[in-house]
């Protein structure tokens, strides 16, 4: 772990505390615990079906945990007074109705937080969708949908970003751009939590790594600590996840 500040209560620390989720008779999360801290990019890594999206959905108040807690600072997401200004979230898919234009989508989200229209044009510019803003979301490519999801997450200029597989579907330019964006936000003291399957491009972006497999955390620490004796994070990842599976 990263040392002494684990007990300090920041308003923008994400705390996942012994999360259990059962669906029917299956336990898909079996006591997940970790923290994502301000000023750091935390990578939440694991193979398909490990429980990453399930954990993030509970963190965002979309699903209910069977037991355990997921907190933003000291409160659950649903208790945040102004959620858009505190947490920007992107889950899989654009999160937008295909019949609406990208701009119309961002506008209703902006209205829900009383943000000015000009902010919509700003985030469209940031994610490079200005020229596609009047197109229907249904006509967007995979990468454009991801960019719209990112624009939605950035709308309230939040303290915390929670991104489920943000690089999925992005082209190399897009990956480089998002990496810079995430590093800048962490450098300005904000919290970034992102999930992924472990790729080379993430290894250069994250400070802290939480590896999850079959609903359990199998490694948690700084990038250096988790990579440890292995040659690369990728080697560590395969050793940790295939080891736990057998």
């Amino acid at each position, binding site marked *: 772990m990263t040392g002494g500040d684990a007990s300090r209560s920041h308003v923008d620390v994400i705390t996942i505390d012994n999360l259990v989720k059962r669906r029917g008779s299956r336990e898909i999360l079996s006591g997940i615990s970790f923290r994502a801290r301000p000023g750091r990019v935390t990578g939440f890594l694991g193979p398909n079906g490990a429980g990453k999206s399930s954990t993030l959905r509970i963190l965002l108040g979309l699903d209910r945990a069977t037991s355990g807690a997921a907190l933003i600072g000291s409160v659950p997401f649903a208790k945040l007074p102004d959620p858009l200004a505190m947490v920007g979230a992107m889950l899989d898919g654009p999160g937008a109705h295909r019949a609406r234009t990208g701009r119309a989508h961002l506008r209703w989200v902006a209205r*829900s937080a009383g943000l000015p229209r000009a902010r919509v044009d700003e985030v469209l510019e940031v994610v490079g969708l200005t020229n596609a803003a009047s197109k229907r979301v249904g006509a967007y490519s995979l990468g454009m949908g991801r960019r719209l999801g990112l624009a939605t997450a950035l709308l309230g200029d939040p303290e915390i970003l929670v991104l489920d597989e943000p690089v999925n579907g992005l082209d190399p330019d897009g990956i480089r751009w998002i990496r810079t964006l995430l590093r800048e936000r962490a450098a300005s003291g904000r919290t970034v939590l992102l999930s992924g399957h472990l790729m080379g491009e993430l290894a250069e972006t994250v400070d802290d790594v939480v590896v999850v497999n079959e609903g359990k955390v199998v490694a948690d620490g700084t990038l250096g600590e988790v990579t440890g004796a292995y040659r690369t994070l990728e080697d560590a990842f395969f050793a940790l996840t295939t080891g736990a599976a057998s």
Partner: protein
Amino acid sequence: MTVPPATRTRGREAAQALAAELSKLATLPATFLTLGGTFVVNLILAIAFTNAGLRDSTGTRSAPDIGLASIGYGQAGFVILGVMAACSEYVGGQIRTTLTAMPRRALQFTAKHVALAIVVLPAAAITAASGVALAAGVLGDTAAPVTSGRVAGALGGVTAYLALTTLISAAVGALVRRTLAAVVVLLGYLFIAGPLLRDHVPAARYLPDSAGFAMWFPPAEDAGAVTPVHGGLLLMAWTVVLIAVVVLGYRRWDV
């Protein structure tokens, strides 16, 4: 350490949620396609009913009665609108954006229904009035005389009925989450199950459809009939109870 965001008052949060839900409805092409389509279809049906009324020498030839007869079918458009307003949340994973932006689910759900009522009330009034105006115009001097109070009452009743039916449809849509399934359930009730029950079970007059029809159909002669005002109160009670029950589930379930 960062500064906590300024807190919003509940009133401000509710106003913003309403603005967001109105914006969603206004930018969904299906909203105005459905309302426009319903208006046109209802008018065509009203023409047919008016022509039938002209040929019928024994009928009363009341402009409001003939002009509103088509609403029995036109209400299907409002059912579809309500269902689509609710089920469109589940297209493209939009519900997850909705609930991360507005995590107080009961507030968001209420805002959505209020927004829907705001959009539907004028549309319903225009649709209903167009049929009556058409009937009055075509029947001309042959129309049975009616007081303007009777016309206003019938139009008000129909408008309220259509708005409440739209809200009930939205609540059912939120429960079922699938457009086609919800539309089939609602139209099956309105056009098949409802009429069957009405003919065989006396207590069926208190069900939403019969109570709603009492809001604008000419009151029946027998003493036990539901009056327009009672019908309106009954349908409003059905709507509020249904929305409240769906909110109980909506607050808890996984999206």
